[in-house]
C-alpha cells in the first residue's frame, strides 16, 4: 500500500522560553492509505506539536527547523503559505481536543461547515445546504436539516465533537489528524465518537493520525502505534506486536502503570516511572529515557540508540536490542492475551490484602460514614421577579455507607452529581434533605463550631493539582493551615515543623521542599502535597474527587500506590469519586454507580464489574476501551446524551436511553432489586424488593 503521509526527521522548536525547546526532534514516520496510526505519549512529549507541524499551524512561538513532511509526493514544508491553505481542510482535516472551545461560538454550524465547502469546492447556495445535511447525517446528527442552523452552544459535548468531525470530513481529506479527540468526553460518548471515526474510515478509506495518551483508545483504534517520548519516537510497531510485547522499557512501563483489577488481585503495586519527563530545552547525550530507566547502563548515557528492527512490524530505539552493542540482549517479554506481563519490575511489592482487615476494625455501630437519602437541589430562578421556578436536582436521594479502612468508589459520568454529593457529605455544600452520619454523629444541621471540631476527621483531595494549592503560600504554610485552623497542636512550633517534615516524607517528598512554593512542583508532586495537607489533621475519611484524572498514567500510578499504602498504614477510608473504571477496579472495595443524581447500582467491586445488572452499568463498562488483542467485546451503544438534571425524565431516569425499556419504566422509579447482601440495583428487569417498594408506595 502506498503511504499517504511521510514525515522525515521533523524538527520543531518552540521559542516560548529563554532557551529554545526542541519539542519535536528528528521524528520520522509514515502513514499508509486507510490506516490509523496512533501516536502515543504522555503530556509534554511533543505529540500535539507534531500534528500542528504537519498542518503548519504552529503557535507564533513555534518554528520548524528541518525535515520534510510529504503528503503524497508533495513536501508540505516547501509549499508557499497560499498553497498550504489548499491542503488544510481539503487534503488534511483536523479535529481538536476541546470541542467546546474549537467551534466559533457566534457562527451557526451550517456557516462553519459551509465555509469549508465554499473554500475548497466553490459550492454556493442550495448545493452547500444539501451537502451540509449530507455530512451531518453521516456523522449522526439527528434532524440535521433543522439543527444545522443552530449555534454550537445548543449542542452537547459529544455532538460538538461530531460537528468538528463533520467539518473535517467536509473537505473529503486523505488524512485526518485527530488530536486527543475524545479526551474531553465521557466514556459512553467516547465510545460513540470512536465508533463513528472507525465507520467513516471504513467508508472513505482515509488515513487517520490519532494522537492520544490513552493506551486503551489506541488499542481499539490503531493499526499501528508509535510511542513518543521527549520529542522523539522510541518505538514503532503494529498494534498486535506492540500490545503483545512492548519492547522499549518506557513502553513496558507505561503498560504496567495502567491500573486494573488484575493488578489488584495480584496484589501488586502499580509500576510507576520514577522522576519526570526531562525538559526539552536541554541538550541530550545518549538515550533520553536513560535517567528513568531500570535497565540503563553506561552506553545508554553516552550514545543515543539507533533504530533496531525486531520483526518486520516492530522497531525500537533502545540499546537493549542493539545487536552491535553486544551486551545484554533482553528479549521483550512475551505475555498472553492480556496486556503487559504482571511481573515486569523486580521492585513490585506484594500488598497484604487489606479490605477484609478494614471491615473488622469498624466500630460497633458498623459504619464510619452513612448517608441516607441525601438530596442537594439548586433552585432555578425564572421570570420577572426571579421566582424559584424549579430545581436542578444535582443529588436526588442517595444512600450509601463507608466502613473504616475501606474504599467506596462513586462512579459516574460528568454531570451526574457525584462531586456535589461528595461535597454535600462533608457539609461544604448544604444538603437540601437527608442524613449524613459520621461515626454516629449527624452532620446535617450541626452547629458551625461543633462541625468545625469534627472537620479534622474527614478531608478532601481535589482533581486539579494546579488550583488546589494557593500559589502565594509556601508548602509549610499550606500544610500547617489545617492544623492551625483546627487547633491541632501537639507540641510547640518545633514539633509542628517536625510533623510537616514527617508528612512530606510520608508522601514521598524530601522535607526541605517545605520552604518552596507550589509553582516549583510538577502535577504529581502537587497532588502529593495536597495529600499531605489532608493528612496533617489525622483524618479517618478522605473524599478523593478525581485525584488522578489530570495526571499522566505513570504519575497516576505513583499517586494510586501512595493512596493504597496510606490506607494500609493508617487505616483510612476513602470515598473515591471518579469516572475512570480502571482506577476503580484497582483501588475500590465497593462501588456505587451514579446516574443523574441517583445511585442505580451498588455492590462489591467484583460483583458489579463481573456481573453488572443495571443496563446503564452494563453500557458504561462496555464503553471503556480495553487493551485486548482479539476484541470480542461488544460496546452497548447508548443513544443520546445525559438529560438535564433540572428536568429528569419521568420514572426511571435512564429509560430514554435504555434498550430494555418497558412501559413501567416510564412511570415510576424502580425500587431496589437485591442480588446479594451487598449488591443491589434499581431496575425493573429484576424482581423488586417487595418490602422497600411497599414502603415507597405508602410514602
Amino acid at each position, binding site marked *: 500500500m502506498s503511504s499517504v503521509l511521510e514525515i522525515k526527521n521533523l524538527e520543531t522548536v518552540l521559542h516560548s522560553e529563554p532557551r529554545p525547546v526542541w519539542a519535536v526532534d528528528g521524528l520520522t514516520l509514515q502513514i499508509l492509505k486507510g490506516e490509523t496510526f496512533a501516536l502515543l505519549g504522555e503530556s509534554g512529549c511533543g505529540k500535539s506539536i507534531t500534528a500542528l507541524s504537519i*498542518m503548519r*499551524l504552529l503557535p*507564533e512561538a513555534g518554528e520548524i527547523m528541518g525535515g520534510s513532511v510529504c503528503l503524497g509526493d508533495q513536501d508540505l514544508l516547501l509549499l508557499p503559505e*497560499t498553497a498550504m*491553505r*489548499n*491542503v*488544510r*481542510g*481539503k487534503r488534511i*482535516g*483536523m479535529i*481538536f481536543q*476541546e470541542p467546546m*472551545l*474549537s*467551534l*466559533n*461560538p*457566534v*457562527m451557526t454550524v451550517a456557516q462553519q461547515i459551509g*465555509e*469549508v465547502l465554499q*473554500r*475548497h469546492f466553490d459550492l454556493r447556495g442550495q448545493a452547500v445546504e444539501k451537502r451540509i445535511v449530507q455530512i451531518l447525517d453521516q456523522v449522526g446528527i439527528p434532524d440535521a436539516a433543522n439543527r444545522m442552523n443552530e*449555534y454550537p*452552544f*445548543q449542542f452537547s459535548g459529544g455532538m460538538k465533537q461530531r460537528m*468538528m468531525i463533520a*467539518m*473535517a470530513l467536509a*473537505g473529503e481529506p486523505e488524512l485526518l489528524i485527530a488530536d486527543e479527540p475524545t479526551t474531553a468526553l465521557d466514556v459512553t460518548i467516547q465510545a460513540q465518537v470512536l465508533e463513528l471515526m472507525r465507520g467513516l474510515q471504513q467508508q472513505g478509506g482515509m488515513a487517520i493520525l490519532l494522537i492520544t495518551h490513552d493506551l486503551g483508545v489506541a488499542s481499539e483504534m490503531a493499526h499501528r502505534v508509535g510511542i513518543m517520548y521527549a520529542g522523539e519516537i522510541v518505538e514503532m510497531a503494529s498494534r498486535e506486536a506492540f500490545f503483545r510485547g512492548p519492547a522499549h522499557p518506557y513502553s513496558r512501563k507505561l503498560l504496567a502503570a495502567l491500573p486494573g483489577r488484575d493488578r489488584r488481585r495480584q496484589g501488586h503495586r502499580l509500576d510507576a516511572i520514577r522522576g519526570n519527563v526531562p525538559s526539552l530545552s536541554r541538550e541530550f547525550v545518549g538515550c533520553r529515557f536513560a535517567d528513568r530507566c531500570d535497565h540503563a547502563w553506561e552506553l545508554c548515557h553516552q550514545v543515543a540508540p539507533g533504530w533496531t528492527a525486531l520483526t518486520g512490524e516492530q522497531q525500537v530505539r533502545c540499546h537493549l536490542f542493539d545487536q552491535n552493542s553486544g551486551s545484554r540482549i533482553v528479549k521483550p517479554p512475551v505475555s498472553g492475551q492480556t496486556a503487559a506481563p504482571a511481573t515486569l519490575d523486580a521492585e513490585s511489592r506484594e500488598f497484604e490484602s487489606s479490605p477484609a482487615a478494614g471491615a473488622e476494625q469498624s466500630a460497633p455501630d458498623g459504619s464510619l460514614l452513612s448517608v441516607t437519602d441525601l438530596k442537594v437541589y439548586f433552585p432555578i430562578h425564572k*421570570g*420577572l421577579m*426571579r421566582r424559584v421556578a424549579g430545581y436542578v436536582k444535582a443529588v436526588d436521594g442517595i444512600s450509601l455507607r463507608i466502613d473504616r479502612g475501606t474504599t467506596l468508589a462513586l462512579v459516574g459520568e460528568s454531570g451526574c452529581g457525584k462531586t456535589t454529593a461528595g461535597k454535600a457529605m462533608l457539609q461544604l455544600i448544604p444538603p437540601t434533605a437527608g442524613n449524613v452520619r459520621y461515626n454516629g454523629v449527624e452532620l446535617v444541621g450541626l452547629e458551625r463550631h461543633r462541625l468545625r471540631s469534627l472537620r479534622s476527621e474527614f478531608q478532601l483531595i481535589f482533581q486539579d493539582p494546579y488550583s488546589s494549592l494557593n500559589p502565594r503560600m509556601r508548602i509549610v504554610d499550606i500544610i500547617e493551615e489545617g492544623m492551625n485552623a483546627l487547633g491541632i497542636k501537639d507540641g510547640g512550633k518545633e514539633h509542628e515543623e517536625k510533623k510537616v517534615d514527617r508528612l512530606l516524607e510520608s508522601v514521598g517528598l524530601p522535607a526541605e521542599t517545605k520552604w518552596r512554593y507550589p509553582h516549583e512542583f510538577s502535577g504529581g508532586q502537587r497532588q502529593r502535597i495536597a495529600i499531605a495537607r489532608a493528612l496533617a489533621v489525622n483524618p479517618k475519611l478522605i473524599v478523593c474527587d478525581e485525584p488522578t484524572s489530570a495526571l499522566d498514567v505513570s504519575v497516576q500510578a505513583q499517586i494510586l500506590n501512595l493512596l493504597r499504602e496510606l490506607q494500609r498504614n493508617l487505616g483510612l477510608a476513602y470515598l473515591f469519586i471518579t469516572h475512570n473504571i480502571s482506577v476503580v477496579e484497582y483501588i475500590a472495595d465497593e462501588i456505587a454507580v451514579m446516574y443523574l443524581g441517583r445511585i442505580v447500582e451498588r455492590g462489591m467491586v467484583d460483583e458489579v464489574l463481573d456481573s453488572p445488572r443495571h443496563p446503564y452499568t452494563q453500557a458504561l463498562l462496555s464503553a471503556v476501551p480495553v487493551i485486548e488483542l482479539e476484541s470480542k467485546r461488544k460496546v452497548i451503544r447508548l443513544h443520546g446524551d445525559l438529560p438535564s438534571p433540572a428536568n429528569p425524565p419521568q420514572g426511571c431516569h435512564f429509560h430514554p436511553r435504555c434498550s430494555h425499556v418497558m412501559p413501567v419504566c416510564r412511570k415510576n422509579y424502580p425500587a431496589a432489586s437485591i442480588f446479594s447482601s451487598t449488591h443491589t440495583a434499581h431496575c425493573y428487569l429484576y424482581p423488586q424488593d417487595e418490602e422497600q417498594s411497599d414502603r415507597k408506595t405508602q410514602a
Partner: protein
Amino acid sequence: MLNYIIRRILYAIPILVGVNLITFTLFFVVNTPDDMARMQLGIKRVTPEAIAKWKQERGYDQPLMFNNAAEGLEKVTRTIFFEKSVAMFAFRFGRADDGRDIAYEIRTRMLPSLAIALPVFVLGLIVYITFALTMVFFRATYVDFWGVVLCVALMSISSLFYIIGGQFLISKLWHLVPISGYGQGLDSAKFLVLPVIIGVISAAGANTRWYRTLFLEEMGKDYVRTARAKGLPESAVLFRHVLQNALIPILTGAVVIIPLLFLGSLIVESFFGIPGLGSYTIDAINSQDFAVVRVMVFLGSLLYIVGLILTDISYTLVDPRIRLE
C-alpha cells in the same frame, strides 16, 4: 427576553433614586442654601435681607425635607427636596440663575452637541477598529510594534494639547476652517470638521490599543486554529471569525455611551464655541449656577442608565448565546 429587559428597567429605578439622593445631599445638605447665597452675593457685605431675597427668587426658601408650617400633603410637597429633587423625575427642571428655563435650554442645545458627538462616535469606532485590525493583521512585525508605540505616545498627550494644537495649526496657521463658532444647517459643517477630527484623534491611542488587545485575545482562542485548519486565508480568519467575536465586547462597550452623546463634550464645545450642552455645563460651573449643574448631574445619570439598559438589549441582539437562552 422581554422579562429580562423589564427586570433591567425596574432595576434602574432604585439607582436613579440613589443618584437623586446623592445630588440632593451634595447640593442642599453639605452647604445650606444660606451658604450658597452668601457665596454668590459676596461673603463680606451681605445682609440677611439679600440672602432671603436670593433664596426666594430661586425657591430655596422652604424647609429641606419636612414643612411643619404647611398642612396635609403639603408638609412633604412644599419642601426643597420635593420641589427641587423629586420634581426632576417629572422633568421639571426649573430656571437657571439668568432666569431662563433649563428644560428649554436643554432641548435647544442638544442638537449642536449631538452634531459633534455623534460623528466623533461613529467615525471613531470605524477608525479605531480599522487601525486595530491592521495592527493585528501585521502582528509580530514592525507595523504592529510602531503602531503600539504610536498609540502609547498618543495616549500620553493631553486632550487640551490636541485642541490647542489643532486650532493653532489648522485654523490659525493654515486658515482652513474657522477657529470657533457655530452656524445653522449645512453652514455648520465647516465649524464641525475640526472639533470632530480632534475628538477622534484625542481618544485614538487608548481605544485602538484596547481594541488591539481584544482582537489579540480572540486570536489566541481555539476556534481560530480550527478556522485556519479549514484552509481559510488569514483575512477570512480575521474578518469573519475574530472580528465577529471581538465585536461583542466592542459594540456593547460602545452602546453605553450612545445616550450620553446628547450631553456633548465639555472642553471641545467650550474651546470651539459650540452652543451645546457641554458648553452650557461649563458656563454653569464657571458662574456657579447650581441649579443647572444639578440638572445636568441628574440628566447625565439618567442617560447613563438608559445606556446600561441599551447595553443589555444589544447583548441579546449580537450574542446568540444570550439571545437564545
